[in-house]
């Protein structure tokens, strides 16, 4: 159970002790180990909430999202959506959950079929779920294209004719097509200039209000995450090491990794030089995670206990949990 148990309301999604390990093979195809991509992750999301997920490249954010979507099967653990464990669903029930949960993929190009026109790619999602007749579907596609900042004539163009940021907005439009409840947004604005990014973020907020949507929002842009999220989880090497409400996390980051992360945000002002906390040492590998606290080899505050004992996640302030031996 997540220790940030939702107070009154029933949570929309409860992720419990989720694990996803991938086998690793050598050039001969023999399994030589495993990547602990997601290791015992638990959190909850309320209806209408935006939960931000941040952390080092390769720490398991996308895998967490993909496992919740059941695009990959978990190694262990549960993901309970409105009281039902996603990993136990079959047939129609799974299909209907697939409509309620959508994902915006991190790599927009590889998720768009290069031989299909954009309009048709968007329409496909409606077809899969048997929504509307041909005319209604076309109207819906046009409406969505307009909402993400395109002109209707772009309906007929192919993916390669779009720029990186344009493709990203197509990915978003596709996720919005079927009126989902929960959208897992994996870096949905990373390729956008700040002005279009603002438009897209405003759009996400508008439709969130309109339809009480929830977002699991993965992003490296800490200003964006701050703007959009109600709560934020910080991941490091497959584990969720800190979790708090947004203002609390930015105002009072506790985990040394979170502190280092926040100190490294580049400042959009050439006259300002910020003091960055540089992480020393080699990046540890999910193939062979360090003993004790996974962050200890790079932690400026590490002591003997950090090498030996895995810290348990504790609630140290109101709705603020951290897994670190500094806080006892």
């Amino acid at each position, binding site marked *: 159970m997540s220790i940030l148990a939702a107070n009154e309301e029933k949570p929309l999604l409860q992720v419990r002790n989720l694990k996803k390990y991938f086998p690793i093979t050598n050039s001969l195809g023999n399994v030589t180990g495993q990547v602990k991509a997601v290791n015992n992750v638990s959190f909850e999301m309320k209806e209408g909430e935006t939960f931000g997920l941040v952390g080092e490249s390769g720490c398991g954010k996308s895998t967490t999202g993909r496992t919740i979507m059941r695009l990959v099967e978990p190694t262990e653990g549960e993901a309970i959506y409105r009281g039902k464990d996603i990993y136990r669903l079959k047939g129609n029930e799974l299909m209907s959950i697939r409509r309620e949960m959508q994902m915006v993929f991190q790599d927009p190009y590889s998720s768009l079929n290069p031989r299909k026109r954009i309009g048709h790619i968007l329409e496909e999602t409606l077809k899969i779920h048997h929504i509307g007749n041909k005319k209604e579907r076309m109207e819906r596609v046009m409406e969505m294209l307009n909402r993400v900042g395109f002109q209707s004539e772009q309906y007929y163009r192919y993916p390669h004719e779009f720029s990186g940021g344009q493709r990203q907005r197509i990915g978003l439009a596709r996720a919005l097509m079927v009126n989902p409840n929960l959208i897992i947004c994996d870096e949905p604005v990373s390729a956008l*200039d700040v*002005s279009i990014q603002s438009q897209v973020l405003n759009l996400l907020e508008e439709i969130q209000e309109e339809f009480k949507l929830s977002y699991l929002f993965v992003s490296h842009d800490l200003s964006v995450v701050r703007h959009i999220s109600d709560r934020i989880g910080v991941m490091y090497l497959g584990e969720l090491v800190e979790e708090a409400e947004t203002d609390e996390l930015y105002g009072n980051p506790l985990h040394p990794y979170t502190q280092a992360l926040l100190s*490294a945000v580049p400042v*959009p002002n050439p006259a300002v030089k910020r003091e960055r906390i540089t992480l020393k040492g080699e990046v540890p590998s999910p193939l062979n995670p360090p003993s004790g606290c996974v962050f200890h080899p790079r932690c400026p505050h590490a002591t003997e206990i950090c090498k030996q004992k895995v810290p348990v996640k504790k609630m140290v302030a109101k709705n603020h949990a951290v897994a670190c031996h500094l806080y006892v």
Partner: protein
Amino acid sequence: MQEKLLELKNLKTHFQTERGVVTAVNGVSFTVHSGETVGVVGESGCGKSVTAESILRLLDEKSTRYEGEILYKGKNLLDFSISKMQEIRGNDISMIFQDPMSSLNPVYSVGNQIVESILLHQKCSKKEAYSRAIEMLRLTGIPSPEKRVHEYPHELSGGMRQRVMIAMALSCQPRLLIADEPTTALDVTTQAQILDLINELKLSYNMGTVMITHDLGVVAEVCTRVVVMYLGQVIEEANVEMLFKSPCHPYTRGLLKSIPKLTGDRLEKLHVIEGKVPTLHQVPKGCRFAPRCEFASQKCIEQMPELIEEESGHKVRCWHFKEIIGTGEGHYVNTSS
């Protein structure tokens, strides 16, 4: 003064499409000296990647036509033969692509792909190339690189794939690096590491860099000069301090205002530049930004302004920038602290 490495002179790139010819890059000129990092920013779809791909002539030349000049060390790359271009790519100029998945081959391990590119451009044994590949991956911060080299692109995270591309581009010590959104998939600490790595190469080999990015924080940290593009044209160019301190073009001003902040009221609605970017089939005849510009006059709608040098090193394409600066409207808001 450093050597002029790259000089774009009135570059135009036209695409043949089903619905006629579109001009994605329309008269772009700028210069990159060795040891210098020039930032290119601008609205999504304004032609940054097409400019970059044009420099290396990577676009399908059956449906693409170039105009103008792309001078690399004084020689026009548009006159080069295919085989001579091949020599330039990777050896002299390398590129980090915006979309790693579409430029990595899914059926080869990442190690093989880096090794192949090293062998193509450098004289060394396969074994040496392999250890060089592992070393490059290590430098980009990929853990256990000796194991990871055997993996396929789909087995890596988004940011790792991006770093594989970076490793590949940097493995041959290019004279000129064209980096198209090289750190979008990276967290800020890994990003800092990559920017440091690029900076080291710049210092030790006097490498010149074209840094395409929409992250204005990155621009502020690493660029010496900045080119701002809008709908296929350069609309402003300045050194980095000047651009942030006194942006002239209304688009640049709007852009700087739209940066989400790390402090202050986070629930405030984000600033947007109103209106939509026209498609390339319906380019306005006057100033291309006029339909979205709050200062647009009749003149702006009818006549296209030229890019003029307002003061030394600061160029702007706008009829009214002097008055606009006067109003203080859209002035730079301090986003730091």
